[in-house]
């Protein structure tokens, strides 16, 4: 239990560092990719608590009202669940496109929602911002695909050493 707590705290600190570093370097967010990668792979309760803490930390360091990142995440996640009722979000080209759209929407909402909550008006959103958001969405979707494939390959390699008894 103590070890798990230490692991979670260390992971949160590392993720804060990595997210801030990537935001400054490439204006790119890694936490959402990591969440979707771990989603349905890790027990939801284990995943949710550190993720909520992480999003609250991002609110504080970026001087957003507490809950802003969480709200954006829940909106995008809700939309993802809604789409999953009609389309597959696990595999295939449609899943990839849904993920691209999902990530792009996440970046677009991050541009307008904080401004809406702080000043009461939507922030300025140009076509260039939307295009860049879509570009980041494509990169994020590819990264998620790569992580999923790496994970699947790792699992296959792990199970190949086992003797199956039918």
């Amino acid at each position, binding site marked *: 239990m103590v070890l798990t707590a230490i692991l979670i705290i260390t992971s949160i600190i590392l993720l804060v560092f990595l997210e801030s570093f990537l935001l400054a370097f490439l204006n790119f967010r890694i936490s959402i990719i990591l969440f979707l990668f771990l989603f349905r792979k890790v027990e939801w309760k284990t995943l949710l608590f550190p993720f909520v803490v992480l999003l609250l930390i991002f609110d504080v360091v970026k001087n957003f009202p507490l809950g*802003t990142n969480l709200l954006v995440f829940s909106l995008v996640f809700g939309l993802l669940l809604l789409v999953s009722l009609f389309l597959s979000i696990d595999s295939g080209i449609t899943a990839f496109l849904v993920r691209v759209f999902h990530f792009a929407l996440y970046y677009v909402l991050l541009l307008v929602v904080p401004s809406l909550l702080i000043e009461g008006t939507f922030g300025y959103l140009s076509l260039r911002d939307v295009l860049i958001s879509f570009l980041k969405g494509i990169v994020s979707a590819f990264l998620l695909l790569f992580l999923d494939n790496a994970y699947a390959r790792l699992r296959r390699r792990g199970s190949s050493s086992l003797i199956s008894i039918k």
Partner: protein
Amino acid sequence: MKGRKQQRKFSSDYLILLITFVLSILFLLLDTIGSLAFLRRGISFVADPIDYNANSLGTEVKDFLGIFVDLKNFKDEYNQMSIDIYEKDVENSFYTILREENDALKKQITLGDQKQEYVMAKVLGDEKSEFLRINKGEKDGIVAGDVVLLGNMYVGNVVVVDSKGSLVRTPFNRATSLEVVVVSGSIERVRTKESVDILSKGVIKGSSGGIIIENMSMNSNLTNDDIVVVNDSRVGEYLVLGRLQDISENPAATSRSGYVEPIIDYEKLITVFVRVDF
């Protein structure tokens, strides 16, 4: 069994959505009324240094890699700066020539004979210092034999004239032979002909070793750096040629000889004046 698992997975998904949405609204409401200030301060205390360091590192890496991205811009900027420098050099050369011309005109007005008429010309090139090519010719009223000078200093004589240019023979040329006088005193006094002591007469000739002066009197009290002034009917007025150097000291000789070091640096000569109405 599988269906039940699937149902549980979906229900946990919606639970995540519900919890995050409710929590976000709750946090937003509580933060608006300032109830979460303690939480904000606590998180800020721990996370701000991490964020600051990561942000600085990210910015540094971005700036460093940005150099490679901007290499083309740097190259373009370098090329533009090179062009600017060349343009400045050209402009500077223009002003340098203008200044030299101004100095030459000043010299001409101060030291030259104001009663004469002159044509200002530019030196285009020289051939082993024996000849100078100038950019004024027949169209400007120059004829063969005209004297080329700068202020009160002798430069040479025009020997060949075409419509737009002329060839000037300098004292270094082997064909040059002029009568001169050696005087003591300053160049300015020579020009105004004020109480200069004529030490000796002589003749100058051009040679590969320099300008030779011969036939100077054995009895004259000549010293190095005495001034050699052209005093020839083909030149028509007293014009300074240079300073006396390397005077011969042979007591058995009937006359003394030496070399003349010209006052004018022929290699750097740009502007000269041709006397046209003599």
